[in-house]
């Protein structure tokens, strides 16, 4: 065993070159970079699908695409953004930052790290292959929405559903391995003196997220396997004619799905909790209450799933339980927001791009939180459910929440990754265009939703026309603004003003003690944390 370990050490002493550097990489930074680029590419793929959707919805009537293709677009847009953009971006950030923040040389399980990344291109290759086949006139791509409710996805699903099922299996394996790796790293590789309650909050949020992933990704794998059995092996899990129940699908799916939405926001909470103290030049107000709030949100996320299902005809006792439990989530979430505001209070703030994104995150995520509170009120949810109000809500928490958190994190840490400062002017331009257009895009959706526009429809009645046109304009500005982000990242990678090791005046934490760019192996001798 020790001989093997020595051998790997020798390999690591040479920085590999060429394509092999990436294909066989076991280095947390290279794998992190691949995750981030994968996510970035998928962001443009999923984003162009959103633009197809918004273009069709610019005016009432069917102008550009058939309803069938519209459904394929909404389905793939959702799947790609959830599993191909937000989640890989978080894993990429964890790969880069967790070892550096806890004073480790690399991730605990580097070979598994390689495999968990390289499963992703396969998974999304399968998914996108189904769209390519659809465009070539060979059947339909998945067209049942990213929530793939049975029996629309089982008895009535297109043949490409099997591609989708296998693709979800691969994504699940990848996520579980990524999560195991992060937990193993955090538990075993912290520098001497770094107790759990001294870990940076980003590390804490990822630690908790990783447990959520391990708990619920197998449930997702289970539900798609049940679909596979129903489709091809004669079972009737979701078919009433055979003694099953279509609503069982929704229970199993949302038992995965609700923790999943916290998987997509907790790491952003962590990023914001790193950035706000840095630019306010002041310690985070309540470190331990932030940690406990994150843990409470994670716990509550397991007992609220059926608030997605108020209209399925649950018994009233069930509706009340899920309504009350969901309301409770507002408390730890409120604690987080109050903490960020108190951290800013009486600080000495500057407003570089990461801070701008962090502030926009706090504003806009809170709006998404408010609509979330409204949605959990069951009698009102009968009106909101499956309308654009819900679409507005989850885009506020996922785009102006999760994605803004990721963008803030990229601007915050890219000087450490590349050794160069990004272009602040371009960063600010990107921020303002993104922040304004995202509101032009998503805010009107609240209005059309309340006025009665259902989601996932390719055509709508005339009273919704104005706000839909407005949302489409916002969508195109938002989409094209991201090219500035791409350009800025590429420019920073190529060169720019050299970054110091501390980068930001108010930065604290082990990652800022390493030189910029950070060395290939982060901490070869562990630092001591007092």
């Amino acid at each position, binding site marked *: 065993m020790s001989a093997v370990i020595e051998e790997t050490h020798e390999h690591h002493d040479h920085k590999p070159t060429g394509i092999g550097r990436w294909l066989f990489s076991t280095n947390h930074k290279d794998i992190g970079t691949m995750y981030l680029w994968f996510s970035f590419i998928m962001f443009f793929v999923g984003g162009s699908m959103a633009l197809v959707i918004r273009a069709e919805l610019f005016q*009432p*009537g069917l102008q550009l695409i058939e*309803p*069938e293709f519209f*459904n394929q677009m909404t389905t793939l847009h959702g799947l790609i953004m959830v599993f191909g953009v937000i989640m890989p971006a978080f894993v990429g950030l964890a790969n880069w930052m967790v070892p550096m923040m806890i004073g480790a040389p690399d991730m605990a399980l580097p070979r598994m790290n390689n495999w968990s990344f390289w499963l992703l291109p396969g998974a999304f290759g399968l998914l996108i292959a189904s769209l390519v086949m659809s465009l070539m006139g060979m059947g339909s791509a998945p067209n*049942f929405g990213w929530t793939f*409710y049975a*029996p*629309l996805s089982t*008895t009535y699903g297109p043949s490409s559903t099997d591609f989708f099922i296998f693709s979800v299996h691969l994504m699940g394996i990848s996520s579980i391995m990524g999560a195991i790796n992060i937990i193993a790293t955090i538990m075993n590789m912290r520098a001497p003196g770094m107790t759990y309650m001294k870990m940076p909050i980003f590390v804490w949020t990822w630690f908790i997220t990783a447990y959520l992933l391990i708990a619920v990704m197998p449930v997702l794998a289970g539900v798609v396997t049940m679909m596979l059995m129903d489709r091809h092996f004669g079972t009737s899990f979701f078919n*009433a*004619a055979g003694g099953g*129940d*279509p609503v069982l699908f929704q229970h199993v799916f949302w038992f995965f799905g609700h923790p999943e939405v916290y998987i997509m926001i907790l790491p952003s909470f962590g990023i914001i909790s790193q950035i706000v103290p840095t630019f*306010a*030049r*002041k310690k*985070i*107000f*309540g470190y*331990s209450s932030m940690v406990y709030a994150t843990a409470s949100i994670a716990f509550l996320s397991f007992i609220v799933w059926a608030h997605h299902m108020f*209209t399925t*005809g649950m018994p*009233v006792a069930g*509706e009340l339980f899920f309504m*009350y439990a969901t*309301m409770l989530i507002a*408390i730890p979430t409120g*604690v987080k927001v109050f903490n960020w505001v108190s*951290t*800013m*209070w*009486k600080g*000495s*703030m*500057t407003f570089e791009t990461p801070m*701008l994104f962090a502030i926009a995150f706090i*504003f806009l995520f*809170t709006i998404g939180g408010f609509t979330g509170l*409204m949605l959990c*009120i*069951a*009698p*009102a949810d*009968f*009106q909101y*459910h499956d309308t654009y109000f819900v679409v507005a809500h989850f885009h506020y928490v996922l785009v102006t929440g999760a994605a803004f958190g990721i963008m803030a994190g990229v601007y915050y840490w890219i000087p450490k990754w590349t050794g160069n400062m990004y272009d602040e002017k371009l960063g600010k331009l990107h921020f303002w265009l993104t922040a304004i257009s995202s*509101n*032009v895009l998503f805010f009107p959706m609240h*209005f059309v939703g*309340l*006025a*009665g526009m*259902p989601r*996932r*429809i390719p*055509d*709508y*009645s005339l*009273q919704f026309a104005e706000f839909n046109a407005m949302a489409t304009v916002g969508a195109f500005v938002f989409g094209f603004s991201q090219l500035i982000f791409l350009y800025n990242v590429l420019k920073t990678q190529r060169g720019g003003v050299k970054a110091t090791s501390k980068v930001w005046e108010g930065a604290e934490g082990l990652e800022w003690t390493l030189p910029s760019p950070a060395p290939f192996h982060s901490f070869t001798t562990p630092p001591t944390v007092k």
Partner: protein
Amino acid sequence: MRAATRVAGILGLMLISGLSHAAYQLNMTPGVTSFSQGAYDIHMMVMWICVVIGIVVFGAMIYSIVKHRKAKGAVAADFHENTTIEVVWTIIPFLILIAMAIPATRVLLAMEDTSNSEMSIKVTGYQWKWHYDYLGEDVSFFSNMSTPMEQIEGMEQKGENYLLEVDNKMVIPVNKKVRLLFTSNDVIHAWWVPEFGVKKDSIPGYINESWIEVPEPGIYRGKCAELCGQYHGFMPVVVEAKSEEDYVAWLDSQRAMAAEAAASAEKTWTQADLMNQGEKVYKTACAACHQANGEGLPNVFPGLKGSAVALGDIAKHIDIIINGVSGTSMQAFGAQLNDADIAAVVTYERNAWGNDTGDVVQPADVKAAR
């Protein structure tokens, strides 16, 4: 100060965008039933609570952004962790939540009480239409969207009730507690009329319940809310509330129409009549998939023009329409269409679009095939 002006700019923009469209509906409808009103009240209450919390939290943030900036010489204070304030900001939200939960519970309990209803209608979702069955009244019918494809494809001016109009409305009497039973023939649909505050999933193999009591006559429009396949967006719900006398008269007229249809199935039709009727039936029942020109959608829905089914054995053609094709989207239309309609549509499909077989199918042939 510059960033503060910018933030104020964003908020202002959001406000203006709200005001300039004030003529359009921005908010949830209070509707006409007790529980659409209940939903509206609780919606407004929670929304205003959120607005107030928002003003406090965002106000503090904006104040801090304006005042506590390094550019204005602010020096960072060094305070953190304060148990009192942390307890306070945990307890106050908890109390606010209780204040929300009490009225929400009251409204919910009233909504879920379907007891003491005076009549029942079974609502069945089909891809992509609704079926209404007046239990014990011997009245049932399908309700299809009646907006013409020409309007959807932009070749005609869109009407006032674009995508919100149907051929047969569901009719209910006013001031009567009507119990609704929801189920589905295929996938999950959701029956929704915003002005009633009722949205309920119709689930194949299961029955869900709700109820409505509409105080005033009028026409109320809604839509299917649960993604149910490609024409999910074209599945409106239209309900007409009538006075008790008008409702009874409507029931009678429905029964008379059913009797007439049954009688027409007994007679022998001319080919021209069958073609006329067939075209109508084809447009409502078949054209969504097989398309008005009979060409279908390549690799999704087969065409009928020149197809083996339309040109081949008549008995098989009739059988497919009555029993559907299992494992495909071709539904069984036996229960949806009467003998005359099936005879007409088979005749139409065998003679339209250059399928000039000259075949004439009579209602009696269909009756024999059932």
